[in-house]
């Protein structure tokens, strides 16, 4: 993305550095993303290499974060786990935003019965507690990373539909949309050319706020045994696998837990900073 394009999608970015906290979040997230990308090169050990005889070594020289119950290096698993968690978050957000924003824009621009129908459908999905629907779906689709992505996306899109709907509905009443209609521009073109770009900012903010939430739900699903599974490295799974070791071998549970906290924290802080910078009037959901 060139600088110009960035400014186009993120308008009115104030000149002063938004917020120190948000900057901390951005740096933290960048580090995590980098760590995930570079995992094969920076991880001290190969991925998923159990050494039962070296199981549960406490943190120390050869294993900074210790080893888990089958003798894998916890740090290595954490680094590879970051890939899974970030992949899940990115896919869920991409999927649900695509579906949600499309439906939301249509509903918001068209209004009338179409909007009512779409909104009632989102109501139904919203009434379904995200984790529970994801649980049910995971039971249907068999556990796995794809399932987690599908399951969470299914529960997540209504938020974007709602958000996009309300923003699009207000954009649709803007004089420039009316003007475009008066010029005879076809409705789909208006939606794509005028409504979509002008509705994107709050969606982008919400996306960055939600990344943390998705990581948490994905971890909870894995923790319940309905998400990623062995031998995939995933943080929630690591907590689940090690949860009974909290009292005896704290490092197996503590580090993945901290990784989740830090990543979610980074996303949340960054998202909040973005929101403050971009549209201070929207309230958190």
């Amino acid at each position, binding site marked *: 993305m060139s600088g110009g394009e960035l400014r186009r999608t993120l308008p009115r970015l104030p000149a002063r550095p938004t917020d120190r906290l948000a900057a901390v979040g951005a740096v933290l997230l960048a580090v995590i993303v980098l760590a995930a990308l570079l995992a094969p090169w920076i991880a001290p050990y190969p991925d998923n290499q159990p050494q039962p005889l070296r199981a549960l070594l406490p943190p120390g020289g050869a294993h900074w974060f210790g080893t888990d119950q089958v003798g894998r290096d916890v740090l290595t698993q954490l680094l590879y786990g970051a890939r899974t968690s970030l992949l899940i978050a990115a896919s869920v957000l991409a999927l649900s935003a695509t579906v949600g924003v499309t439906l939301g824009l249509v509903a918001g621009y068209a209004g009338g019965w179409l909007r009512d129908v779409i909104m009632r*459908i989102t109501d139904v999905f919203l*009434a379904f*507690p995200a*984790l529970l629907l994801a649980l049910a*779906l995971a039971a249907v689709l068999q556990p796995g990373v794809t399932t987690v992505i599908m399951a969470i996306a299914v529960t997540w899109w209504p938020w974007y539909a709602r958000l996009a709907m309300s923003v699009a509905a207000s954009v649709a009443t803007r004089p420039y949309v009316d003007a475009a209609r008066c010029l005879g521009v076809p409705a789909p073109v208006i939606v794509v050319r005028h409504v979509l770009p002008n509705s994107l900012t709050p969606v982008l903010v919400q996306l960055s706020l939600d990344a943390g939430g998705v990581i948490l739900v994905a971890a909870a699903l894995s923790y*319940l045994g309905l998400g990623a599974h062995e031998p995939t490295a995933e943080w929630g799974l690591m907590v689940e696998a090690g949860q009974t070791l909290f009292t005896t071998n704290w490092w197996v549970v503590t580090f993945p837990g901290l990784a989740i906290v830090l990543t*979610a924290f980074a996303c949340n802080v960054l998202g*909040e900073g973005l929101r403050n910078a971009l549209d201070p009037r929207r309230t*958190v959901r």
Partner: protein
Amino acid sequence: MAGYLARRLGQALLVVAGVITLTFVIMRLVPGDPAVAFAGPKASEAELAAARARFGLDDPIPVQLWNYVRDLVTGDWGTSLHTRRPVVEDLALVFPASLELVGAALVLAVAAGVPIGVLAARFKRRLPDVGVRVGSMLAVSVPVFWLALALQTVFASNLGWFPVAGEYDGELDTTSPLTLWTNITVVDALITGNWPILTSTLHHLVLPALVVAAYPAGVIAQLTRAALIEESGQDHTRLERALGFSESRILTRFALRAALNPVLSLIALVFAYSMVNAFLVEAVFNWPGLGRYAADAIRSLDTPAIAGVTLLVAIVYVLANLAVDLLQGVVDPRARAG
């Protein structure tokens, strides 16, 4: 107002109908035969067939859906494959405990989140604010299951300040048995003046409620802060300042009430969310609630029970939303017009 209420109720009913259909569809999609779940792992083909007939699994799908809806409406939510009791009875037994936990957590969350949010807004951009923002962000970023394990290990196991698990001391069942009215232990203990059970339950409630409260307290604090800051950017706050009111007074007497509105609608959302979070926490603290029931149901692929839990939570969500909508009318006069 009456018309509005009717419309709102109609919408709620529509949503519930949608949830029922969706639940049904999902339950049909679950692989593996529910009959197998009922008849046991070593069942013979004949036993499976009998179980299948018993649950009407051989009927065509539309007939099944129709029967399902009809049964739900008449209060027959099916029989749990796992406990082999009517799901409604099971839910009536376990739901109050969850309600107790989530209710306590939300009370905690509001009691902590709102003042913390006010504090942050009052000292915007100064140390308390930064502290509150970091703290609340952390609170919403912590996986509950992890927090539950950590608090249990530290405060119950190592320090021994709180009980490890359970709803109240088991011995109290004999020394001062509780008469049940609502099935919500705290409430029943209050009604019947059963102090030993009340104090014991409250003591047991502290840790799990804290864990469940972490997320809502975090968002409530954030939202209160954001809403207050937004309010204090509004023209009317300037007028209040121009009238000579002090900052604290402006926040608590004028801005807070307006800010409470988004907080209220948030509570409906976090209520449902916390309900599900409670699922994860209940297992750790051995809280005899919906979560444990749901976990068992999911593990044993107990279709009617899963459906029951899902429906119940969805209905609770719808009701909570309804209640919040009505409450908002009380808090914010502008909402009444709509």
